[in-house]
């Protein structure tokens, strides 16, 4: 049997089996899902990219198989999927409806693999929808539907998916085939108006999943309210499907004459990243903060893709991989805190560094990667992005990205400080470190983050072959843009990243040792309520730590931008529609005689119209 089919059968069959297993032998469930995922990962890595499967369904020709591009994303999916499942076994312990949870978890991972292996639009859509509903079922897993987040997610996904479907059928009506290669080959032969419409419709579809600006409103709550073990995959891998789709559309379906599309997308992404960063800053809940941060980060990625330069695309893809790594680490870390402490409200938690040191380490590394500070991969990615934008002359975009990444420092700091540093509250004294099965995935991912800083080449290599399969060839003076541990730039400078890393880490370690030795004796524990005030009488309930309202001034400054959320417009629109629908409903007024009158009136109308217009 073809390993592609086997992969899908294992995934979906395994998902169903996990559901059934949970009913009868719940003890074996965790082991089963982890083993299944590991087996699938093995199968995935052994599959390779040359495998092609052709078949017909209902007279529609379909083709499955990985390309180097989708393989890259596939790696993200299986790695994150396996780690998140391992993490899940501890994180979800003791919750109910686990069979349901794991079933949908595996469904969505299987669907993602399906999306990546589709070489035709119908299978792509098919798996896209499976991914949508299975993730929806996890989003609403935790019960009370605050703000109807699940429904919102589903509505937006549906809008996106159906605009995709519309594009797909229109493409087919022109080209007569759903195969991606046929579509790519002949898309520019059809009318320009249709071309643009198709590109836009497809991008709406992918934009929803990657939470682009006007379509992002579902994301914050969906990310923050799903179980964290799934959010790691959701934000890490699932949103990358949108990125993958964007790449497909931008590189293959938008002709160079329609460069405006690229510009618009880039600008939307830039606005997304700035606004989402601002929102992230003013959140007090770590999960929501990370959710907004995810949206902002995907903004960078899409800016990179839309820049349509070799370096920009590379930066975008690099950031995509990296984002998957560090953002899922962060979600896992927050999940660990949530599980051990019971809350993720940063105004309540503080000083967990002593209680959960390993979680802290993972968070720290990921935060550094997120903020784009030098020794780690985030820096590399952002550097490449800036360079690409500057060399291609997108100066305003550079300003936007700069604004957004500066603001990102604010929330990066906040999440680190709010949860781990600061005064230790006595009520958290009993908190223990997260169990091993949660730590290991986090630490593995952190390790990847570190490596990405020192050896970006191991990520850039698959990216380069992926770009080749997207149709990008290096057109630059250098032979190569990177070596394993060395970063070049347009101007011919070389930076040996390992040296940077080792030196910075060395300095850091020395400083740490120094502080520890020097300051250990002077340390004094005070509670957050025990702070001397300058003549002001402090009430016991006043918590004076600066997690609270620390960013108030900043918030006040950006408030005009954020006052009216896009969400509110959607809500008003929905309300208006509902009122309209209620009006339509009055047609069925309950009086049977009116129904009979409708019949007669319709007949009269038809007789007039029929004899006049239908040519009888």
């Amino acid at each position, binding site marked *: 049997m073809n390993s592609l089919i086997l992969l899908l059968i294992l995934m979906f069959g395994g998902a169903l089996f996990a559901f059934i297993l949970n009913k009868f032998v719940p003890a074996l469930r965790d082991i089963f899902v982890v083993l299944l995922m590991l087996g699938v990962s093995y199968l995935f890595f052994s599959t390779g990219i040359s495998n092609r499967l052709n078949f017909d*369904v209902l007279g529609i020709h379909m083709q499955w198989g990985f390309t180097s591009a989708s393989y890259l994303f596939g790696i993200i999916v299986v790695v994150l999927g396996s780690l998140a499942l391992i993490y899940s076994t501890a994180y979800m312990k003791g919750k109910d409806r686990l069979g349901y949870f794991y079933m949908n978890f595996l469904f969505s991972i299987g669907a993602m693999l399906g999306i990546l292996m589709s070489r035709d639009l*119908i299978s792509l859509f098919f798996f896209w929808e499976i991914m*949508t509903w299975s993730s929806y079922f996890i989003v609403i897993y935790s019960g009370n539907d605050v703000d109807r987040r699940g429904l919102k997610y589903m509505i937006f996904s549906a809008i996106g998916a159906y605009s995709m479907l519309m594009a797909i059928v229109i493409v087919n009506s022109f080209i007569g085939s759903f195969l991606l290669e046929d579509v790519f080959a002949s898309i520019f032969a059809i009318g320009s108006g249709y071309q643009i419409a198709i590109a836009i419709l497809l991008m709406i579809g992918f934009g929803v999943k990657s939470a682009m600006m006007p379509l992002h409103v579902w994301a914050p709550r969906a990310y923050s309210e799903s179980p964290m073990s799934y959010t790691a995959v959701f934000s890490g891998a699932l949103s990358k499907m949108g990125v993958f789709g964007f790449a497909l559309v931008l590189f293959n379906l938008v002709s160079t004459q329609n460069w405006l599309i690229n510009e618009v997308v880039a600008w939307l992404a830039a606005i997304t990243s700035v606004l989402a960063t601002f929102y992230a800053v003013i959140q007090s809940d770590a999960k929501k903060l990370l959710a907004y941060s995810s949206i902002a980060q995907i903004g960078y990625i899409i800016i990179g893709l839309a820049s349509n330069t070799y370096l920009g695309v590379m930066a975008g893809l690099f950031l995509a991989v990296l984002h998957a790594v560090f953002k899922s680490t962060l979600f896992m870390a927050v999940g660990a805190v949530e599980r051990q402490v019971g809350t993720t409200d940063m105004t309540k938690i503080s000083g967990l560094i002593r209680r959960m040191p390993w979680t802290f380490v993972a968070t720290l590394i990921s935060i550094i990667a997120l903020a784009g500070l030098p020794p780690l991969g985030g820096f590399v990615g952002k550097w490449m992005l800036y360079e690409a934008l500057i060399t291609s002359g997108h100066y305003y975009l550079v300003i936007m990205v700069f604004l957004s990444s500066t603001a990102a420092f604010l929330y990066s700091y906040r999440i680190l400080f709010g949860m781990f540093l600061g005064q230790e509250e006595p009520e958290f004294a009993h908190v223990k470190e997260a169990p091993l099965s949660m730590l290991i995935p986090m630490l593995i991912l952190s390790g990847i983050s570190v490596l990405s800083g020192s050896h970006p080449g191991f990520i850039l290599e698959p990216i380069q072959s992926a770009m080749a399969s997207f149709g990008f060839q290096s057109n630059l003076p250098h032979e190569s843009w990177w070596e394993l541990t060395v970063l070049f730039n347009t101007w011919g400078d070389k930076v040996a990243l390992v040296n940077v890393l080792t030196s910075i880490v060395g300095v850091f370690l020395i400083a740490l040792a120094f502080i520890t030795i020097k300051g250990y004796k002077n340390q004094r524990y005070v509670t957050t309520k025990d702070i001397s005030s300058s003549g002001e009488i402090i009430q016991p309930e006043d918590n004076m730590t600066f997690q609270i309202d620390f960013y108030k001034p900043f918030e006040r400054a950006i408030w005009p931008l954020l006052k009216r959320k896009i969400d509110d417009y959607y809500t008003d629109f929905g309300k208006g*529609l*509902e009122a309209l629908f209620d009006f*339509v409903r009055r047609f069925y007024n309950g009086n049977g005689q009116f129904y009979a009158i*409708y019949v007669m009136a319709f007949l009269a109308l038809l007789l007039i119209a029929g*004899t006049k217009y239908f040519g009888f």
Partner: protein
Amino acid sequence: MVISPVQYIAIPLIAAFLIPLFGKLNKELVRIIPGLVLLYLSYISVVLMNQVISQNTMIVEIIAGWRPPWGINLVFSPFSGFLASLFSMLGFIIWMYTYNFKREVEDAQTEKFYVLMMMLITGTIGIVLTGDIFNMFVFLEITAISAYSLTAFYRERDGAEAAFKYLLVGSFASFFILLAIVLLYSQVGTLNMADIAQKMPDVNPYMKGVILMLFFVGFGIEAEMFPLNGWAPDVYTQAPGPIGAIFAGMVVKAGIYGLVRVIFTLFDVHEIFPLLMIMGVITMAVSEVIALRQGKLKRMLAYSSIGQMGLVLVAFGIGTHEAVFAAIFLMFNHAVIKSLLFLSGTYLVYHSKEKNISDLDGIGKSLPFTSFLFALGSLAIVGLPPFAGFWSKLYILMAAADVRLIAVIAIILAVSVVEIVYYFRVLHRIYFRERISTIEIKIPSFNAKISMLILAIVIIVIGVYPDLISGLIERAATDLLDKQHYIQSVLSVGLH
């Protein structure tokens, strides 16, 4: 005795006349006999369908020894045969569901229930099988009268009100169809559909137009076209649960069959297609948005059903081979999926007086199996893969795209979003709310579970492997579009 299409009518009739007698012998027989009959019908469906497909013919059965156009004949063509087989098999599954349904109803009523239910199914089968237009009217009346009575079956509901509305509008339908038949007879002097189709070109176009409009309205009422469907939501709501499934799965389909048979075969006027499509779009849009605002489960399902019928009309209105294929596929899918929804939904609101959606809060924990099947049906009906509904919707969109009906595609998809919203809202309530209502819960009986499970398996299997059935549907679509073949096959029968 050789298996022949007339047994579709004769066997249920004998059984219907026998049931009152057997009811005196043994109460259980009353429940069992319809099942046996429907099982037998399913069996002959398989045999006949196999014959039709393998020999690439249509079976035309003469009745009373007079060949068409003088006698009545039954036509088991790929299209009508497909629908007849669908009805009998679905009927059997629904019978299985009703076997232990509402045992507390009096014996005398049980007997009537089964007679009426069986005749409802037989009536729909008769409508699709008959080759004679007046005979179709008679079967329409059989269907209608059983439907009126079944709608008013429960005394504690507002069934009588719904039934009266249905009767009022349904009488208009019969009236218009009969009027059309009368005018048609005055023009062509025959009642056989093939003969009419053959003679139709000679009729003057004005007369043709008026007759077609009368048929259009008449069958449009049965097919739940938009301004004519006032009765439908009430009827679906008030009828017993399995009967709702029969309405959604068979009665409407029979109405649509009548409509398309008249338009495609009898008249063959392509000018009417845009009208059919426009009415379909309006029907779909209006009823789906109304469904969004429903607070009662069955009413929501009813409007959803009407909306799907609108989609079927759109597909027929496009009129290409691909579109007709999609329409028939959707008819099949909708019959199966909506039956599943009605059957499982019935148990979800079994003891609820108002049948409110809010009564479903948290019922997923108490009724896991039924809720799961309901969820599956919901996913399928909105056309999410990997369930059956996806392929038919895809094909309709493809057909629409091929003739560049971009606006229609947009409307269909926008309406699908609405559909997703209201179905997922229900699912959310089922699974993710705490149960507060104190309404007693009814666990489905074993046979009901089996019947729902069969439907669910069909949905999944067709969803994953649609080619299982596409051959039959392909033949059905070809049959519907090939008017000449129909005429020839019918009129040449019995010519020695």
